[in-house]
């Protein structure tokens, strides 16, 4: 098992990369809506779930079961 420090050492850059990809995807979506407002789906639940997930991840005072909660969030 890894120590907390080892987890950061091993996965910091990978996490940074995933966050950048996420940011880029949301930017891509926003630019597309600005370019083509008519082609933007209204109240798409997928987008709501993404932002809900981000709020969940941003909460530092939580329990280490984020993955399970995210999967439940994306489940029917």
């Amino acid at each position, binding site marked *: 098992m890894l120590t907390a420090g080892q987890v950061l050492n091993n996965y910091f850059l990978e996490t940074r990369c995933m966050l950048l990809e996420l940011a880029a995807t949301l930017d891509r979506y926003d*630019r597309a809506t600005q370019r083509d407002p008519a082609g933007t789906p209204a109240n798409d639940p997928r987008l709501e779930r993404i932002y809900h997930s981000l709020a969940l991840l941003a909460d530092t005072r939580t329990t280490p079961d984020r993955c399970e909660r995210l999967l439940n969030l994306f489940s029917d």
Partner: protein
Amino acid sequence: MQIIQPHYHGIARTAQDYERMAMSGVVAVAEPAFWAGFDRAYPQTFLDYFRQISEFEPTRAAQYGIRHFCWVAVNPKEAENPPLSYEVLRHIPEFLKKPTVLGIGEIGFHKTTKNEEEIFQAQVELALRHHQLILIHTPHLQDKVRGTRRTLEVLAHMNVDPGRVWIDHIEEHTIRAPLDAGYWVGFTLYPITKCSPKRAVDMIEQYGHERLLVNSSADWGPSDPFTLQECILEFRRRGHSLQEALDIFHNNPCRFLGQCPKFDIQPIRVET
């Protein structure tokens, strides 16, 4: 589709890379001089390295029908050792005469120190004296903004033609200033660090591709030359035309590198 890989560290890779690159349409690579993963102790070690990339590596690439070009320089990390760097710089002009050497690079900053800056300036001056193209490395990760800013400040006080300078490893937070100042910019696609294929296409869509080079670098660290092809696929999947893809991934390297007469590959036009 024909592709030019403008930043590729072939000596760190196996022949299988060349074979697979050839099968995927790569017709030429350009290999900048870089850090070997450890600091070299002797000037002669650099000179042998320059011989390797200017004499031997073209023969490896040629076995797969790929043209191999290179750049020579003291890389930013080893520029921290000025006595060693000056000794190497004394020998660089003899390599500039070789038929596949395109210019001086990659130079610039690693930690943006005084020593690095002194050697960076010395190498830009050397390039100007010998009318060479210049390839500039910008620092990785948290040092990138400061290093890129200082790079532009240093260049602004030197008599460089921005159209003959390529500033590489650019990302979303460093792209605007070099483009506004007239330099060529490069996206280096890495699996984890630097830019990703999708983010590169985002920036192409935002900023256009007039002075833009995309490469995957590919060295001895975690890297993959095929992130370049991944980027081309992403670009095409978003509906951009074959001609636009050729303009970015083949013709732009021809336009920039072709400012050195030794690089004689011509742009391709498939759509009228």
